Every structure is written in C-alpha cells, then in structure tokens.
C-alpha cells in the first residue's frame, strides 16, 4: 500500500531520520517503538507530508494525505469549538457529510461542549473518532492509548482489529508494550533516527525483555535514590 525509500530528515546539521526503508501492506498493523526523541513523530509527520524530507514515499492510492487519518500525540483544538464542530470540520475537509453523530459517538463524548474543556483522554478519543469518520485507508496513531481510560483502551484495540479486517493499514506508536503486543503484526525499533530492528509477532516477547534490559541497564542505580 505504501512504501518508504531512503527517507532522511535533518534539522540544520542534526540528522533526525536516516535512510528509513519501510513497507506497509494492506490489512496489517505496524508498531514503531523507540525512546523519546528517537524520531517517531518526525517519521509520522514525514509520511503525512507535514514535514519536508529526502527520499521517496510511494502510495498505491496517490497522495498519502488524502486517505490518511493521523492521530497526533497531542491533538490541537481551537479554544471555542465543540466536539461536534471538530468532527464536522474534519469531515468537511474530506468532502464527507456526516449524519447520525449521536449513533457514532461510541466513546460517549459530550460533543456539544467545547473540546478544550475535555480531559486528555477525551481529546484523544474525539480526535480518533473524527479520523475514523473520515473513512481513511491508512491510519497513523501516535500514542493512541496515552491518557485514555481502560474501557476506551479496550474499544480502541477492538477498532484497530476491525480496521485490520477491513484491509486498512495502521501504524502505531506506543510506550505501552502490551498494547502493541495486542494489536501489531510487526514492530520496528527506531533508535537515533534509524530502524535498527524489525520484529515479527512471534518474537514480540523477546523484544520486550531485550528492550527492558537495554533501556533500564544500570540507570536506576545511577539515580542513587534515597
């Protein structure tokens, strides 16, 4: 569905992404993991076309942005826009007329209230609902489970399974390994702007232990907690 060839991105002399080569197929869920600052969000922005980059992104359907639902880590909301209006705005942007928002409000959000008054989790659920109603073919979900309550986490996981069944491609970043374990077919490990490892489903448990050992090391001892 979408292939990325030699994607590189720099800010001045600082290289953020280096020679990324990835291939995302229909009906599959991909996880991108890496420490804060590893380049995950920059990679997503490059795929979305929100950041200029070197290298090529080839899509089966044309411009990725026209069929891409991008859930940002911290979705931005205007100060006085209601949940309903936010969804309306995103649907207008794709020339879609959405009716029956009440029925589709599966997270029971107070859609007639201003979105800025929502909690972190509610904002995420609103932004997620909006991109689902856009009828996208590809989804980038940047930390979709962050700040979201456990019930909604279950719903989000089920939605991801459903999207997969429908033949859509989903790319997820998450710092909660169990959520990736439940949803992904493949996980890519991003470190210092490079994909250093590709892990298939059957090797996920090894990856978790490896990451734990590698990430924690003797860092806790260094803190010298008292």
């Amino acid at each position: 569905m979408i292939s990325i060839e030699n994607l590189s991105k720099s800010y001045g002399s600082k290289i953020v992404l280096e020679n990324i080569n990835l291939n995302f197929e229909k009906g599959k869920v991909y996880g991108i993991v890496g420490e804060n600052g590893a380049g995950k969000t920059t990679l997503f922005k490059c795929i979305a076309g929100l950041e200029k980059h070197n290298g090529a992104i080839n899509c089966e359907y044309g411009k990725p942005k026209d069929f891409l639902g991008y859930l940002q880590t911290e979705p931005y909301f205007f100060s006085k826009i209601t949940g309903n209006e936010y969804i309306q705005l995103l649907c207008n942007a794709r020339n879609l007329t959405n009716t029956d928002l009440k029925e589709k409000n599966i997270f029971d959000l107070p859609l007639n209230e201003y979105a800025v008054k929502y909690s972190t989790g509610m904002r995420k659920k609103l932004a997620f609902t909006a991109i689902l109603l856009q009828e996208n073919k590809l989804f980038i979900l940047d930390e979709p489970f962050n700040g979201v309550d456990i019930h909604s986490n279950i719903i989000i996981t089920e939605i991801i399974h459903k999207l997969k069944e429908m033949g859509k491609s989903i790319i997820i970043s998450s710092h909660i390994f169990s959520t990736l374990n439940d949803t992904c077919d493949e996980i890519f490990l991003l470190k210092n702007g490079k994909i250093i490892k590709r892990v298939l489903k059957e090797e996920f448990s090894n990856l978790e232990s490896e990451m734990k050992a590698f990430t924690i090391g003797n860092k806790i001892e260094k803190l010298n907690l008292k």
Partner: protein
Amino acid sequence: MKDYFILQFKMLNRQLTEWGIEPVIGYILGLFAFIVISIKLFKETQFAEYIYIALALSLVIKLNEVNRNDFLKLCYSRKEYIKIRIFENLIVSIALITFLLFQEKYLSSILLSISVCFFSLIDLKNKSSYTLPTPFYKHPFEFTVGFRSNYFIYFFAYFLTFMSISVDNFNLGIFSLILTLLSCLNYYTNSEDAFYVWVFSLTPKEFISYKLKNIIQYSTILCLPIIISLSLFFYTKIEIIVGFQFLGYLFIFTTMLAKYSVFPEKLNIRFGIVFALTLWLPPLLLLIIPYLYIQSTKKLKEILQ
C-alpha cells in the same frame, strides 16, 4: 519573583522580534503611539475615561487565566503568588492609570488601581459548560471560534446601528458596519495549526475558494442586520452601504491570503504596514491581491501536496 518578571520581559521581547519589530524600537513607538492616541481620544470623546477603565479591566481579566494562575500557585508560595499577580496587573494597567491621572480623573484612577489589585486576589474560574450556539456550524472554524470570542462586538455594533437610525447619523451606521467587518477580518490574522490545512483534500486553488466562500457567506450573515436596517432608513445611500460591504469582503479576503502567503509562520509587521497602506489607498488591493494569491498557492502547495 524577580526571575519571573525577567522571564516575562524576555518572552515579550521574543514576541516583538517574531512580529518583526526590534524590541527597543517597539517600546519607543508603542509609548509614542499610546500618548498620541490617548491625547486624541480624550480630545474627541467624552467617553474616553470609561474606554480606558474598560480597557484596563479587560487586560487584567485576560491575565486572570485559570491554567496560568494554577501554574503560578504551584510554583510560588501564596504570598509570592499574590505579589506577582498584583505587580503584573499593575504593570499592564499602569499606562492607562497614569494617563487618567494626567487627565485629572483622580477618582477613576484610584478606583481602577484598587480594582486592579482586587482582581489579583480572586480567581475567575469559568465552570459553566454552556456552549454559545452559532449559525456557522456547517463550516467551522474561523467564524464559530471568532463569534464565540467576540459576540459582544456584534451586539455593540447592532446597538450603534440602532443609534445611528435613532439620531439620523448615517456615518455612525457605516461605522457599525466597518466594526463588524473588521471583527470578521480579525479571524484571519492568526495562523492555525498546520494540521487544519493539511487535513483538506483540496488543491490550493480549491482551498482558497472554499475559504472565500465562507468569508462571503458568513460575514454577510453577521452584516445583514446592519445592511438591511441602513438600507431601509438611508435608502438614498444604498450604493455607499454596498460599496463598504464589498470593500469589507476584499479586505477580509486579502487578510486571509496574507495569512496563507506566510503560512505556517505568523503575519508580521510588514503585513501591518501594507494593510495600512491599502486602507489609505484601497485601489492598491488590485496589485496586492494577485501577488498574495500567488504566494498563498505556493505555500499551500507545500502543505496540501
């Protein structure tokens, strides 16, 4: 506390630099403009004193923002917090209070100073979940957000229209129309998050047409009560009313184009100068609009690619 104000000063300087103004020049020009406008205002209108009080209080209320104050409360002790709040409220209103004193409005300046300090001690938390309905829900966001933030301007403008008819003053009516159009124009002066442009599946030309359609449709809705009232009571001057309305569309359209011509950066002082020039000589729009249109399509192409 000293560090806090040094940081605020640095942030203000950075903001001025972002607007394209050298801070020192900005402060000198700002002070000069304030004195000139104040002298003129007190000479021209008997309401200047009240305008100053309202202005000072609105600045102080703006500083009384819940999240910001909660952050300050977390950082500082109660005593320090109150000191900071009193100082910052006095800083933002000091020029207005001083000018009131200079104009020998002693009672107003004393009452204003007390009110400003009083507002430092209270929290204006808005716990209401009331959502102001608007007729603009089909195509958010500029007019929905703008109307909810500035609805009082429209009530004031409609009141002025009513007054213009009552006292048979056509110029006042036109002023109310200009006020409404300027308020609509203001919705296009701030750049939105790039996501809200990126999300559109449109070409730059289609995107600009979509925005233009919204401008015409929604600003007409807001201006319609004024246009109809003035046309009925000053029907001999209907061409002037239509002329101002048309110019209003052009100026709002120009501002929208200017915003996207530098997008996602913010509009800077250069636009302010060009805008002032076009206000002085509107035919300049004929040159500026095509230029801004080309620049906007270039910038939008990068995001809507």
